């Protein structure tokens, strides 16, 4: 498991940052994000909290060995859930990768909160975890399969060589036995 975190402040009021966050892409600094789609959005008529579920499409220049090993492509998709709570002036954004998620997950959480002086505090944490349990079970399955194949081949080898020896020697050995008897 790897962790990442950073925190800093934007020199803009919270409401400006939160209105601005829907205008973040496309962005010349983040050209890896190429598509953004809202797949679900609700405005809670009681609390005023807005929940938005988006799918972001990224073009990652992944190392070629990753693309080959995991059969992925350079298109990667991310699921992002955000909550905008005006009453507590709190925004949380949670993201997790959809692509290659059977091998590893990158779980990111961002928060925007008001800070002193009309600024906005930004915090970001990420946990990156390879699904080792899954790798291990895949490795176990591979080993079991190899053992079975080996056993099968060992049986076949024994049967095959027995046949060869029988064909070569059976007649001669029977003749010798008959001569002795």
């Amino acid at each position, binding site marked *: 498991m790897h962790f990442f975190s950073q925190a800093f402040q934007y020199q803009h009021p919270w*409401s400006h940052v939160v209105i601005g966050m829907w205008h973040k892409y496309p962005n010349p600094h983040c050209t890896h994000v190429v598509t953004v789609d809202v*797949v679900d959005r609700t405005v*809670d*008529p009681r609390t005023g909290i807005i929940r938005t579920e988006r799918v972001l499409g990224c073009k990652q220049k992944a190392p070629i060995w990753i693309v080959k090993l995991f059969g992925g492509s350079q298109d990667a998709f991310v699921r992002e859930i955000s909550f905008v709570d005006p*009453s507590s002036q709190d925004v949380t954004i*949670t993201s997790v990768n959809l692509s290659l998620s059977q091998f590893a997950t990158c779980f990111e959480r961002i928060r925007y909160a008001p800070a002193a002086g009309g600024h906005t505090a930004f915090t970001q944490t990420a946990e990156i975890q390879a699904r080792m349990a899954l790798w291990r079970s895949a490795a176990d399955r591979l080993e079991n399969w190899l053992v079975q194949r080996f056993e099968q081949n060992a049986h076949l080898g024994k049967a095959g060589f027995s046949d060869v020896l029988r064909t070569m020697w059976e007649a001669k050995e029977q003749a010798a036995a008959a001569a002795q008897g």
Partner: protein
Amino acid sequence: MAHSLSPECTPLKHEYDSCFNTWFQGYLEPAVAASVDSETRSAYSKQKAEEFEQKCGKIWGQYRECVQKAVKEKGLGELLEQAREENPLKEPPQPPPEVEITQSSSSST
């Protein structure tokens, strides 16, 4: 505005995004101001939720239909369903512990 994952949905997406952004810009600051007590907040939230539905509901329906189809065509339907099952995130997550770091850092265990 960013493109949709399917070019055919992009015009609908742009129209929907514009609708939402216009609504949201008029919503946010009064919503903060309306949070003085839960009654004022509910009244304002209800009114603005209805207004959002009335203004953007139709284009949302069209865009959603298009994007749902695109999600399936890109082979993301199952991955998205799986992610939703694993982590529905229907409620705002608890605030994370305060991070007092001012510079980027990364660590591994």
